[in-house]
């Protein structure tokens, strides 16, 4: 059976469009806001949502997502609340939902129980930025068995590792745009195109570029190299600004539209 994620990419391919993938820190500014934002995002033309579980020690994240995570944790956001919200969203939308979380959250919750939670709440995929190929054995089997796509991250430094990293992947391949953590970047190196080409050589899976895409121009500049673009920190920043004004959707919606138009 095709997963919701692969279905979405085939659909987009037919239309000749690139996927817009939006990252949200769950519980920022609160869970109700996250719930409404997912539905807003769908209306604005977002194709896939990454639901970030806020974590105390987000090693792969820059200051914007770190700060949002701290705030979400102060509000008491936890995994059960997020599964609960995903379940409720599933009653309203067929938008592919991907969880992004650090490995300790999965491990401590219990890998079996965590993936069961994904399945029963309608989560389609899982991204674990601190679980490289060498360590993923602990969950890849379970994920495969319950139909959750375990999405690999491939970095510009991966080089000879690329073929291995994508070999048994599903869903899509998360291509990290540049060295460093999440956050906004002013531009991308010319090496990005070469990097994307070398990933492309090793897999038929859709390729999404993430880390550092901060606006429509940046999205436009990379769209020909990939099948989808992931935007995180730039959205989180607007959520923050919106929260300060008391109108999160009003602040985020137009931004998502400009990204959509660029793709």
């Amino acid at each position: 059976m095709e997963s919701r994620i692969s279905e979405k990419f085939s659909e987009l391919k037919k239309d000749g469009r690139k996927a817009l993938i939006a990252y949200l820190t769950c519980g920022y500014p609160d869970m109700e806001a996250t719930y409404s934002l997912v539905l807003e995002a769908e209306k604005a033309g977002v194709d896939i949502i990454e639901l970030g579980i806020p974590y105390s020690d987000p090693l792969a994240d820059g200051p914007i997502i770190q700060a949002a995570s701290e705030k979400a944790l102060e509000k008491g956001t936890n995994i059960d609340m997020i599964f609960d919200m995903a379940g409720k969203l599933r009653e309203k939308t067929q938008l592919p939902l991907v969880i992004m979380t650090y490995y300790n959250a999965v491990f401590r919750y219990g890998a079996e129980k965590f993936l069961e939670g994904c399945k029963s709440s309608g989560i389609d995929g899982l991204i674990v930025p601190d679980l490289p190929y060498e360590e993923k054995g602990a969950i890849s089997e379970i994920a495969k068995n319950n139909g959750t796509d375990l999405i690999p991250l491939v970095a510009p430094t991966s080089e000879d590792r690329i073929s291995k990293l994508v070999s048994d992947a599903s869903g899509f391949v998360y291509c990290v745009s540049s060295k460093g953590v999440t956050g906004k970047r002013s531009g991308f190196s010319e090496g990005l195109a070469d990097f994307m080409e070398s990933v492309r050589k090793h897999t038929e899976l859709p390729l999404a570029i993430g880390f550092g895409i901060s606006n429509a121009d940046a999205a436009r500049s990379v769209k020909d190299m990939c099948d989808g673009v992931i935007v995180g920190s730039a959205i989180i920043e607007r959520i923050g600004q919106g929260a300060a004004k008391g109108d999160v959707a009003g602040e985020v919606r137009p931004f998502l539209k400009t990204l959509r138009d660029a793709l």
Partner: protein
Amino acid sequence: MEIQNTKSKFGQFGGQFVPETLMNALIELEREFEKAIADESFMEEYRYYLKEYVGRPNPLYFAENLTRKLGGGKIYLKREDLNHTGAHKINNVLGQVLLARRMGKKRIIAETGAGQHGVATATVCAMFDLECEVFMGVEDVERQSLNVFKMKMLGARVNPVTSGTGTLKDATNEAIRDWVANVDDTFYVIGSVVGPHPYPTIVRDFQRVIGDEVKEQILAKEGRLPDYLVACVGGGSNAMGLFYPFADDKDVKMFGVEAAGLGVDTDKHAATIAKGSIGVIHGMMTYVLQDDYGQIMPVHSISAGLDYPGIGPQHAYYHSTGRVSYVPATDTEAIEGFELLTKSEGIIPALESSHAIAYLMKLAPKTSKDDIIVVCLSGRGDKDMNTIMKYVGGESYGK
């Protein structure tokens, strides 16, 4: 090149839970480290600087007054406090910086809690003329201001880290993030037997000089191995350095002393083994203080160097096999240890090392006169004078 999983782990502990961006760098580091320690000219250089720059071998001092006061076995102190820069940290820094030079890296980064690792790194970088940047939690910047000043004098840049709890764990996160961004030209000098493989092994192998020397010295003085080894444990590098060479000597009992802060029954402690559970932090699977959802918990200790929610994976392994006993000592007990050693031997220990003395105060009286106890005096107390002055003045830290 594929790494064997078994090589990267101690039982189930250790591993490489890091962003993919770092994986090739870790693989290269492992390869270069293995080549280096097998290369006699590299080791000769390392030993040269240990002797001529650090001041090794440092004494294994028979603490006669302390022995008399505590009324049990003979107490020896391994004097890491007499090293250049005042703690054991420099043994490891020297090894790693020599490795960095060998690998052609120009920029060095480090994290630090108490500042001893930061000062050691800044010192060795000054000597070898390398760019040095140190990450330090804002809370530690405040309580270890003397060390911050030293690092700056030595030409290092000190980056105060405000995220999270503003202590060692957050400084470590920040150093890892910096490394992810600058992995091509930057060498991350990690300060304890923690982090992703191969760091716990690298740091252990550069710190084992402590235990190797103790073995030689005690055989010369007593003609036999000690009965007990005691060392404080934050990440666990001074303890690992002392313990590792004795790991196969089954009759040697070993104690790692964790920081129990205001007590293990409060929520203000850093007693990872006593109160933690298995999890992942800073790229390694180990014991960690965390909640039911895997969020890392804030920790507390009067000593910035033990204020860490994790512990090196090899210690986690030794705990799981029972080879080493991990025991807690509170802030108050550490202060008692501090005062006892200062007054009885005229040696002012670091607050970290004072935790080892605190447990010694419980252990020694239970041992017999012909037992031999070796305590690792990991560092000297100069850096802690502010904290002690406040404490003596009635201000208890971190309430």
